[in-house]
């Protein structure tokens, strides 16, 4: 069975008491000693490893030896975030409230210019133009509450 996290494809094939895991040209044997409440007690090539894993939709949180990674399970096709060369969509990095909109539709903006300002956790977050271009569409108003990854502005980079 194949699982893909971000760009990494992991293949797990049942074998004996456990699995044979393959990532790229690396192959190891894996055995689950114990699994309970998000904690995995594993033997990887005979080495004892404790892993903590949680899931939230397509996201996987995994911690081994104090290091935590947020992995995204992908179904093969990768979502294109920026919308290609000539256009881009700017999304809210976190939930918050729109504090100011500093540009209007059709306005030419330069790279790094602040387009709008969000407020969250008493902090101000500036949404800036990633490249030179024109504001194609403004999808939010001052005072509006936005969700994480909600599209705020559509840009045209000609």
């Amino acid at each position, binding site marked *: *069975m194949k*699982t893909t*996290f971000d760009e*990494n494809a*992991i293949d*797990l094939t049942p074998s004996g008491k456990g*699995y044979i*895991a393959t*990532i790229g040209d*690396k192959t*190891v044997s*894996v055995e*689950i000693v114990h*699994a*309970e*409440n*998000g904690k*995995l007690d*594993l033997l*990887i090539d005979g080495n004892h*490893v404790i*892993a*903590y*894993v*949680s*899931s*939230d*939709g*397509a996201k*996987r*949180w*995994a*911690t*081994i*030896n*104090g*290091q*935590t*990674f*947020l*992995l995204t*399970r992908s*179904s093969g096709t990768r979502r294109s975030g920026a919308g290609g060369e000539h256009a881009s969509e700017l999304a809210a*990095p*976190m*939930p*918050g409230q729109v*504090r100011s909109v500093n540009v209007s539709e059709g306005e030419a903006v330069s790279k790094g210019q*602040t387009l709008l*300002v969000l*407020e*969250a*956790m*008493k*902090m*101000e*977050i500036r949404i800036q133009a990633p490249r030179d271009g024109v504001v194609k569409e403004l999808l939010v108003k001052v005072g509006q509450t936005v969700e*994480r990854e909600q599209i705020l502005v559509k840009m045209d980079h000609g």
Partner: protein
Amino acid sequence: MFKKILIANRGEIAIRIMRACKELGIRTVAVYSEADKNSLHAQFADEAILLGAAAPKESYLNIDKIIAAAKQTDADAIHPGYGFLSENASFATAVDSAKLAFIGPSADSIRAMGDKAESKISMKKAGVPTVPGFEEIESENDFKKAAKEIGYPVLVKAAAGGGGKGMRIVNAENEMKESLEAARHEALNAFGDDRLLIEKYLPNAHHIEFQVFGDKHGNLVHLFERECSVQRRHQKIIEETPSPLLSPELREQMGRAAVTAAKAVGYHNAGTVEFVFDPSLSTFYFLEMNTRLQVEHPVTEFVVGLDLVQWQIRVAAGEKFPFPQKDFSQRGHAIECRVYAEDPANGFLPSTGKLLQFIEPRGPNIRVDSGFAAGSEVTHFYDPLLAKLIVYGENREAAIQRMQAALREFVVHGVTTNIDFMQAVLSHPDFQNGEVTTRWVETKFNWKPTEPSFETLIAAALADQTIANRKTQNANSNEPDPYSPWKVASGFRN
């Protein structure tokens, strides 16, 4: 002694104060907002009163509602914690007028130090060195003029402020307008006051602060320093004591200046005198005084062996502080790491969500002050501090090693945290040599998250595999942990 104390705060500090109350046999009242109705601090208290909506102005910053809650529950004192109303003189006055005790300094001391302009003037008069700058100016033009005179870079900061909120570095004149607006707005939101002051920005400075403590009978001591130079966005993330930089002579000089500063405003209760320190010149300037309990107070508690919150309560009730300065010495070394829900790889943006796992480290001389548990919701309404991890060791090296081991045991899933980032700071030679300045994180420390290890990917894939197996074998399994990946087989959206 008080019989019942209302804690006008939330999160870890509310719980820490309630613990001190419980130890002293005092009943506790929590206040909470709608966003915090399932929070640990509300559960931990003997009684809990709903203040109102999530927005701080409707809840934790609402003086009338908090006083009403204290009256309603028959509390005889209020502890403000840090942040929110802790340095609001009108709040201290309102508490007094309501015939309740305020656990903190007098309203006059708060006012004298809270107004950064007034405090600078009185510190100069008392002979305490201050940072070059201007106070009591308003227009953008006046700020530009002042900046020109001081010389860029300058710092504009909330006159009523603290905790790094409402503060901006301005490198050049064309940044002034936006910086003033942003700082003013943050200041208004955080402190209800949008006045700003300007001063010279010292880029290579260390932040060293002194804990002071006094009673209402004129006894006042300092409890040594805390080195708080590891900062991002002007907010501390790692603090320690003793500072690796101070010689015994400097420590004594700065301690004396801290006591002078506190005495100049008739201070009692716990307070912190902050200094900027230039190690190349061994000069120090008074920066400000925080007239409240500090986030990082536990490191001081470890090395001087005093429970600061218990003593805050006792001196507020009129007890004498019985220990003279000569009774105190620093024993061993303590470090605090602030575990924030934020993404260091993405400009330290706060991260929100439900905590799927939250496993705190344990062991000898490891202390965790936290306000969250698995299942808690981290919302965007409040400061993203999840927990403070504090360790004690015989010396600095031992304390660093203990902190590294403790951080490795801290597991937080559901929000991104700065745990890996702090781990990298602790192992960096600059930190180990005590050479970290307040700008080090921004300018010198080029941290990038590591790629997930082979083992991590396998573990994540195995968890998915196990879910798939469970689904076919035992679709209705009743897992005790609702956030276990083994449970949510049918919940996948992708």
